[in-house]
């Protein structure tokens, strides 16, 4: 069943791959000794992770006083980083869940890595609400458990508690979705492995054997989990925005926050996916699976969500003016022109102005421009959260308590430390698990492989290119010495 082959869509798998070649290519990074680039990056990441451990220990030992928070500025880099990391996580779920429901085939090339990124980003995000309590060992108080104080329950009416439920549910569901997708691919790695590796992957693969009934249930499960994850991902950043929107602070108390935060989350998440995948496809040699077509599709999403975010920024300003309410008006005048105007300008440049280059197809397909844009957007989205939190809090109700906030070295080190945590986890992931979903890529080969689509942008670049509608048997032979059926087989 090769399905419908679109005559105009560009291929998503290049190089005339056979099923076996897909397995070889995607499993390769898990089977080889890591290269020098990986080792150096890993060492740097682990050093940053060490900084994280040190700065968190310092915070706990010295107390929250080691941060530059005060009565006026009671949230600083901590919650800025929290919202930033949660937002980054959203792209993984969007790619794997929403694009699955929309039947977008380009999802298969990037969903695995994006989901991994989601999980690691949520792990990083989760650190901040815990650390900012100062007394980490009291973190259990946020859960409604039968305690000796009555039991005194938590406040279920508080958006901060909603956040606890939203983030922990999001993490759990993302992890289950990701792992269930990984099981068949771990089985592929297992069946190629020998010795001790085989034992490890046997445990990880849960005994997967590719039975048709299992596949049927697996697809059914994936579809329903995608259906559940779609409203979930929208709810998570909505609830994060409630942390601000439900508080009676001019500049925060706005109904536009939920959609604005969700669009911003997807925007920043795609930027992070691009940053990671542009490097990963090169280092892990996956250019034929994460093609320019994938990059262009993601850039289109960036253009859309960046523009939504831009409209939201302008709407905020317009509504502040239109409200006729001087305190609201002043809050936004202060945001744009006040002491933090540098961060507002940075946010506008990075998030709204610069992504407009993606109206040009050449820019969307340029790896160089895409990489720099992805970095800009990550910075811009960090600024956005900082603008919302710092400019609003620095000018509170009482002008005598106005202040200006700059972080201490501890706060900066914690942030750099979470980057270390994130990249350490991601680098381990690229060596342990197939970075591209093997089974899912194989399932779109007959409709999106370049030897079947009749569209050959790369013809002539690949020595082993095969003509259209070539049979897979031919491909097996093309792959050279890679066809090695076990000794117990017999050709008829």
């Amino acid at each position, binding site marked *: 069943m090769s399905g419908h082959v679109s005559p105009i869509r560009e291929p998503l798998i290049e190089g005339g791959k056979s099923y*076996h070649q897909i397995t070889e290519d995607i499993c390769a990074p898990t089977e080889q000794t890591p290269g020098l680039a990986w080792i150096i990056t890993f060492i740097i990441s682990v050093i940053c992770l060490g900084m994280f451990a040190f700065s968190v220990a310092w915070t706990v030992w010295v107390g929250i006083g080691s941060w530059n928070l005060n009565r006026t500025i009671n949230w600083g880099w901590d919650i800025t980083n929290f919202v930033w990391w949660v937002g980054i996580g959203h792209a993984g779920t969007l790619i794997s869940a929403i694009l699955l429901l929309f039947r977008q085939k380009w999802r298969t090339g990037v969903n695995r890595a994006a989901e991994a990124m989601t999980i690691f980003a949520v792990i990083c995000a989760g650190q901040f609400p815990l650390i900012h309590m100062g007394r980490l060992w009291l973190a259990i108080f946020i859960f409604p458990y039968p305690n000796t104080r009555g039991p005194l*329950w938590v406040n279920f009416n508080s958006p901060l508690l909603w956040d606890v439920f939203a983030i922990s549910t999001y993490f759990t569901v993302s992890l289950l979705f990701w792992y269930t997708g990984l099981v068949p691919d771990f089985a592929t790695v297992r069946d190629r492995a020998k010795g001790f590796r085989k034992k490890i992957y046997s445990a990880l693969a849960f005994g997967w054997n590719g039975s048709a009934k299992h596949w049927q249930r697996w697809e059914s499960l994936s579809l329903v989990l995608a259906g559940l994850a779609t409203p979930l991902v929208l709810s998570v950043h909505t609830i994060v925005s409630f942390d601000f929107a439900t508080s009676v602070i001019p500049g925060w108390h706005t109904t536009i926050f939920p959609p604005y935060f969700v669009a911003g989350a997807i925007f920043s998440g795609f930027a992070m996916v691009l940053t990671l995948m542009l490097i990963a496809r090169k280092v892990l040699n996956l250019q034929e699976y994460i093609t320019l077509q994938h990059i262009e599709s993601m850039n289109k999403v960036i253009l859309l969500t960046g523009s939504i975010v831009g409209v939201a920024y302008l709407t905020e300003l317009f509504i502040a003016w239109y409200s006729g309410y001087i305190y609201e008006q002043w809050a936004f005048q202060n945001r744009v022109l006040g002491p933090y105007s540098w961060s507002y300008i940075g946010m506008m440049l990075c998030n709204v102005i610069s992504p407009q280059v993606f109206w040009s197809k050449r820019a969307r397909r340029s790896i160089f421009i895409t990489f720099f844009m992805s970095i800009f957007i990550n910075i811009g989205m960090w600024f956005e959260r900082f603008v919302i939190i710092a400019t609003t809090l620095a000018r509170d109700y009482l002008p005598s308590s106005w202040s200006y906030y700059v972080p201490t070295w501890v706060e900066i080190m914690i942030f750099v430390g979470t980057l270390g945590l994130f990249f350490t986890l991601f680098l381990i992931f690229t060596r342990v698990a197939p970075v591209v979903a093997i089974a899912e890529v194989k399932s779109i080969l007959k409709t999106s492989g370049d030897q079947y689509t009749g569209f050959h942008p790369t013809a002539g670049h690949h020595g082993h290119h095969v003509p259209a509608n070539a049979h897979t048997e031919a491909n097996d032979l093309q792959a050279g010495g890679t066809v090695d059926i076990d000794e117990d087989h017999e050709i008829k």
Partner: protein
Amino acid sequence: MAHSIADEYNLKTGEPVADGHHHDVLFALYDDEEKLMAAVKEANSRHLHIMEVYTPFPVHGLDPLLGFEESRLHQAGFVYGALGTLTAFGFMTWVFTRDWPIIFGGKPYWSVPAFIPITFELTVLFAAVGMVVTFYIICGLGPGAEPIRLHDRITDDKFCIAFDLNHGGDDEDSIRDFFSATGAESVHRKLV
């Protein structure tokens, strides 16, 4: 017919003896899902009893040919989700109206709109966790699970149709005949 080469389970005679606990499996590997689909159709028309089909990725259109009904996993998911809804909403109602009523911000004890976010989250959590656990249990998968695994290339690029010689009710010759007629790439025999 060609003889099967002994694998680790086979006796030296090449005549595997099944002891009732084992399946004496005769299976063939195909190199393409379209050949597999055609073969399954052919097996149905020859009234052969396929034990199991194994594929490296989900092959669409295969389920009806094998007579699979639609999975009811999503119905289980609905039940788990409803359980989550009731748990969350019921618990918050009990806490704030019976166990320890507290007024927050002058709102009523039973402030339903404020319960919606947590109720939603727990609905999703219960449905997702319940379905995933159910999936692994009904498939018999999990850490340490050892279901039948016939060939290492099945998770790579080969599509497998397997027959049980002891319990399937089809004689070996008709199965081998079917395999060669449908273009199987290789035929194997294994006691599992």
